[in-house]
């Protein structure tokens, strides 16, 4: 909070303070979920949290960085394969290997950015997709992790850090304990992601990012290095998406190139979550993932109808409410749970008047 001449710059709102308290309560409940919920509930929550993480990173790319990528499945798959490779070939504990998942994604993201930053707009989108295809086809040639048909996580690696302790503590089988440990990891990852992105957006860099998104020429004229901002969001998103990918496949314990690099599962779904919820906001993906999960639970038995409805809903939202469900809510109510807008408040002389 900067104070000059009786004014302060604030981003906090009353709603955001209440939301903060609610989030803390929710967090305590979420951590305690495995104590009282069934195994399938824990698995559903794991799915929601990992999709939320992927959605937040895609939103950072497209909503804040203006980089509409259709190739994020490259980083999901790379993260997953890095984890499997490290556990199978080096015998590394998979939980420790999660860091490697992120590192592997960044290592590929650097040359990828070098290629795809030459392309603009829609061409950038398909460029990232081509790179993802190249990575998928290359990984399918990697025979020691099963080549094109994939492989499972070895028995030793399934007993990763924390599983034995949780199995003893909760008196459950190892397979259920794995679900609990991965759920907690997913919870931690989602919180770190949302917290990290919120922090980033409130810093000077976040301001630069928003400026570059809103008007690139104007942003450049005040000294913002737009290309550097692009690199920043691209690499950060790659790292986070890679870690999420590693975690998703640690829970699945089985991998194949077609699944780990699936454009539908890891990019199409994620795009719909963000678009339906509201692009360019932190709240949007949270709402989007809940709508997505509700639709999936309702329509799971209808196969392709489900995807048709999801695609159709995405189109309708983009045409008639381009800022998504959260956009509709916040337009009507002025609500902001993660405010990043800086507002000027008068602190001295008139006490009652706080609107500067």
């Amino acid at each position, binding site marked *: 909070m900067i104070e000059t001449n009786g004014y302060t710059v604030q981003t906090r709102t009353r709603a955001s303070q209440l939301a903060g308290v609610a989030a803390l309560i929710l967090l305590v409940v979420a951590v305690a979920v495995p104590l009282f919920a069934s195994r399938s509930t824990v698995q559903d929550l794991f799915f929601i949290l990992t999709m939320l993480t992927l959605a937040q990173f895609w939103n950072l790319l497209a909503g804040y960085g203006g980089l509409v990528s259709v190739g994020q499945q490259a980083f999901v798959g790379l993260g997953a394969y890095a984890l499997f490779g490290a556990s199978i070939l080096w015998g590394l504990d998979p939980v420790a290997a999660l860091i490697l998942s992120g590192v592997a994604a960044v290592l590929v993201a650097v040359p990828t950015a070098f290629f795809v930053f030459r392309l603009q707009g829609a*061409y950038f989108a398909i*460029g990232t997709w*081509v790179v993802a295809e190249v990575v998928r086809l290359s990984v399918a040639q990697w025979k020691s992790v099963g080549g094109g048909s994939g492989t499972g996580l070895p028995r030793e690696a399934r007993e990763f850090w924390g599983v034995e302790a949780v199995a003893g503590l909760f008196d459950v089988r190892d397979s259920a304990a794995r679900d609990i440990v991965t759920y907690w990891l997913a919870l931690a990852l989602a919180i770190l992601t949302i917290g990290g992105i919120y922090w980033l957006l409130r810093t000077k860099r976040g301001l630069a990012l928003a400026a570059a998104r809103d008007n690139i020429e104007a942003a450049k004229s005040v000294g913002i290095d737009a290309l550097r901002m692009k690199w920043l969001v691209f690499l950060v998103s790659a790292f986070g998406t890679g870690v999420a990918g590693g975690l998703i496949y640690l829970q699945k314990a089985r991998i194949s190139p077609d699944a780990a690099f699936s454009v539908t599962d890891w990019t199409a779904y994620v795009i719909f979550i963000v678009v339906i919820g509201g*692009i360019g906001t932190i709240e949007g993906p949270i709402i989007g993932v809940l709508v997505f999960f509700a639709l999936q639970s309702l329509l799971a038995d209808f*196969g392709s109808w489900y*995807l048709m409805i999801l*695609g159709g809903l*995405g*189109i309708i939202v983009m*045409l008639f409410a381009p800022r998504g469900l959260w956009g509709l809510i916040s337009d009507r109510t002025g609500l902001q749970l993660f405010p990043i807008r800086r507002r000027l408040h008068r602190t001295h002389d008139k006490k009652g008047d706080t609107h500067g």
Partner: protein
Amino acid sequence: MIWIDTIVQGILLGGLYALFAAGLSLVFGIMRLVNLAHGDLIVLGAYLILMVVSVLGINPFLAALIAMPLMFGIGWVLQRVVLNRVLGEDILPPLLVTFGLSIVIQNVLLEGFSADSQRVRAGALETASVDVGPVTLGVMPLLTFASAILVIIALNQLFYRTALGRAFRATSDDPVTASLMGIKPASVFAVATGIAMIVVTIAALYLGMRANFDPTIGPARLIYAFEAVIIGGLGSLWGTLAGGVIIGVAQTVGAAVNPEWQILAGHVAFLVVLLIRPRGLFPRAYD
């Protein structure tokens, strides 16, 4: 000798990719819209031709003639009802809407025709071949390549010799000034997408006759088409043909070395061109 054969087959395959790409290039050239559902529209066209063939029991080429006006109509309505609403400065809406459309088309086809792979039967034409010097060429690949050239010539004629083409170019350059001259950009765009759908139908005809297809193969065709457009340079139809040929040759050469490398080799060729000539081989438009 085997290498000459491989390369010639690759060049002819490039004709197919140029057909995939021509519609994409046309729409992009006029309204700066990249249709992510382009590949799925090609597959939709192939199913349409298949339906006409099986209902009327006629030759696939005649069936394509019947499918063309239908596809033109689909394109026209799509542009008027959906795509015209999302054109503008912001690139996000058209991308996300066409991406949604891609998912919808795939799943409508999946629901309507199942995931079984299909093929448009073309009788003796499928296996017919001619000997040219040391190599044997299939009649079907030759027809594909010839069609690609004809389509490009026809589109260029349309662009530079007709009133409609003038309207296309004017709207592409400056829609506001064009509309002062009595051109309605919304209608021009609708006609352009309709024409692109006619090209899509031709691409669909060869896609359906040359190999098996199923509802999920659209995105891969979109990627080949896109690579051909970028390699050729935005805005140049002959460049697109060259781009298609480069992808085609890379794929057949890659496949000759190791069958698993076919698709990978095409993508790698694209990335190499992007590295050396970021704006493509024959750039015309500045975007």
